[in-house]
C-alpha cells in the first residue's frame, strides 16, 4: 500500500520558516484532512511532497520513493494544487489530453474523468468560459487522470456549488474506500468534518495534531446536554444542587457539562419540571479546532520569550 511519509521536513523562504521539522504519515484507505490557518504551510508541504519545491532539510516520500523517482508520476499520485493551472484558451479536453500524453495515460481516460467530474458537456469549451467550480472540477479530473493510488487535493471545495460539495464529499469517501491514500487540505471545518477520518493539523509550519477525527474532537470538546424547561431558574437550581456544571444555553435553555440525557431527564421529571427540549450536543470539529488554535497562540506567544519546549510528534 502506498503511504505518504514526511520526515523532519523543513522549508525556509529567506528568513521565514514555512514548514518546520514536520513529521507525519498519511495512511491509505482513509481520508486525511489537512487543516490549519492560511499560511500554516499546508500548500508548501504539498508542493514539497510533489517535488516542486526543494526542502531546506528533511524528506518527503510516496511509497518509500521520492516523487521525482516515480516513473510516470501521474499513475502514482494525482494532485490538485491550483484551479487556475489550465490555460484559459485551451479546451478542457485538450488540457487533459496534453497531460495524459506526457505520462502515456490512454486517451480514453480523458473522457472517463470528464464524465466522472461532470464536465462531459463542456469538454470542448475553452477553460476561460468556466466558472471557478468548473475549473475546480477540471483540476480534480486532472488529478484522477492516471487512476493514482495517492490523491492530494488542495482546497478542492473552493468555488463549488452545494451540489458540487456533496459530490466531492462522496468522491473522497469513495476514493478512500477503494484503498487509496487521500490527503485533502481545507480551512472549512464543517466541510472537513463531513469527509475526514483522520486529521493532520498544522500551525505556523509545525505539526499540532495527527489523530483520528473523533478522538481529536472528544479530547478537546466536552459533550454537553442541552435542556430547556418552562422554569429556567428552578432547573438551574436543581442541577447545581446535584453537582452539575451548567451554563446559559441558546434560546433560554441550559447547557449541562459532563452529563447524559438519561440522568438529566429523570432528574427534571422527578422534580416535576416540564421539559420542552432535551438533547445531547456532540462537539464539532470547529469547536475542537478553535480550542487547539487558541492554545497554540498562547504557546507561541510564550515560546517567543522563553526557550521553545519540544513539540510532541508522532514517529
Amino acid at each position, binding site marked *: 500500500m502506498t503511504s505518504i511519509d514526511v520526515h523532519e521536513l523543513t522549508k525556509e523562504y529567506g528568513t521565514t520558516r514555512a514548514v518546520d521539522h514536520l513529521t507525519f504519515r498519511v495512511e491509505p484507505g482513509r481520508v486525511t484532512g489537512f487543516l490549519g490557518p492560511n499560511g500554516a504551510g499546508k500548500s508548501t508541504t504539498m508542493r514539497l511532497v510533489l517535488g516542486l519545491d526543494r526542502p531546506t532539510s528533511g524528506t518527503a516520500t510516496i511509497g518509500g520513493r521520492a516523487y521525482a523517482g516515480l516513473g510516470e*508520476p501521474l499513475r502514482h499520485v494525482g494532485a490538485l*494544487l*491550483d484551479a*487556475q493551472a489550465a490555460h484559459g484558451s*485551451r*479546451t478542457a479536453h485538450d488540457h487533459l489530453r496534453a497531460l495524459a500524453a506526457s505520462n*502515456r495515460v490512454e486517451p480514453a481516460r480523458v473522457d472517463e474523468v470528464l464524465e466522472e467530474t461532470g464536465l462531459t458537456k463542456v469538454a470542448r469549451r475553452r477553460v476561460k468560459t468556466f466558472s471557478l467550480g468548473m475549473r475546480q472540477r477540471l483540476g480534480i479530473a486532472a488529478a484522477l487522470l492516471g487512476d493514482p493510488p495517492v490523491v492530494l487535493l488542495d482546497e478542492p471545495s473552493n468555488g463549488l456549488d452545494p451540489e458540487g460539495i456533496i459530490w466531492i464529499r462522496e468522491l473522497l469517501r469513495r476514493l478512500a474506500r477503494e484503498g487509496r491514500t487521500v490527503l485533502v487540505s481545507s480551512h472549512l471545518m464543517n466541510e472537513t468534518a463531513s469527509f475526514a477520518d483522520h486529521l493532520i493539523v498544522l500551525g505556523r509550519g509545525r505539526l499540532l495534531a495527527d489523530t483520528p477525527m473523533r478522538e481529536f474532537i472528544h479530547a478537546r470538546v466536552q459533550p454537553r446536554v442541552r435542556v430547556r424547561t418552562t422554569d429556567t431558574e428552578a432547573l438551574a437550581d436543581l442541577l447545581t444542587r446535584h453537582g452539575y456544571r451548567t451554563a446559559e444555553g441558546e434560546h433560554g435553555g441550559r447547557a449541562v457539562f459532563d452529563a447524559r440525557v438519561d440522568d438529566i431527564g429523570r432528574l427534571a421529571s422527578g422534580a416535576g419540571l416540564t421539559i420542552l427540549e432535551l438533547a445531547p450536543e456532540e462537539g464539532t470539529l470547529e469547536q475542537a479546532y478553535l480550542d487547539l488554535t487558541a492554545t497554540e497562540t498562547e504557546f507561541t506567544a510564550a515560546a517567543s520569550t522563553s526557550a521553545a519546549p519540544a513539540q510532541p510528534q508522532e514517529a
Partner: protein
Amino acid sequence: MAFAPVLHSEWIKIRTLRSMIWALAAVVLATAAFSALAGLDSDGTDFDPLFAAFFGVNFGQVAAVAFGTTAVSSEFQGGALRLSLAAVPHRGRWFTAKAVAIGVPALAVGLLTGFVSLAVGSAVLGDKASGLSAAECLRGAVGCGVYLALMALLAAGLTALLRSGLATLSILVPFLLIVSFVVGGVSGGIADFLPDKAGQVILHQTSDGALGPWSGLAVTAVWTAAALAAGAWSVRRRDA
C-alpha cells in the same frame, strides 16, 4: 521516463492554443508582406537584391519571438508550471521537450517563410533581382528559416529565465525594432555580433562585416544556446 511522450505532450500544448497558430501565420504573412513593400521602394547605393527580398524578416522575426515567448510564458500563468512539472519531474527533459516543440514548428514555418518571401520579393523586384544566383537564393531562404527558428528559441530561453512573457517582449521587441536599426547603421565591430545582425548576414548577397553567412548564423546560434541554457538552469534550479 521516456522523452517521446513528453515531447508529444508539449506538442499538443502548442497546437491547441490558437495564439500559437496565429503567431506562426504572422511570421509568414508579415515577412512576405513587408518584403513585397520593400521591393517596391528599392533604390539607393547600398541596395542588396537578396536582402530586399527578405527585408520583411525584420517584422516577421517579431512574430517568431512572440511565438517562442508565449509558448513558454503560458507555463508561468496560474500555476501551470506546477502541473507540468508534477507530470514530468525531470525538469531538464521537460524543458528540452518544450524547446523541441517550439523549434521544430518554428523551423518549418521559417523555411516556408523563406521561400514565400523570396518568391514574393523577387517577383516585386523583377529585373533588379536578376543578378541573384540560384545558390544565393537557396542560401537566403534556408538561412531565413534557421534564423527565425533561432530567434523563437532565443525568446523561449529568455522567457524561462525571466519567468515572464511581458519582460521578455519588453526587452526583445525594442531591441529588434529600435536598437538594432540604430546600431546597425554603425556597421563593423561589436554590432556585427548582435544576435539579429549576425544571423541576418545570410540574407545578404554580399557581406562586408567580420562575419560570413554561415559564421553569422553560428553566432546567432551561440546566443540562442546561451539563452536556452540559462532558461534550463532557471527551470531546474528554482522552486516551481
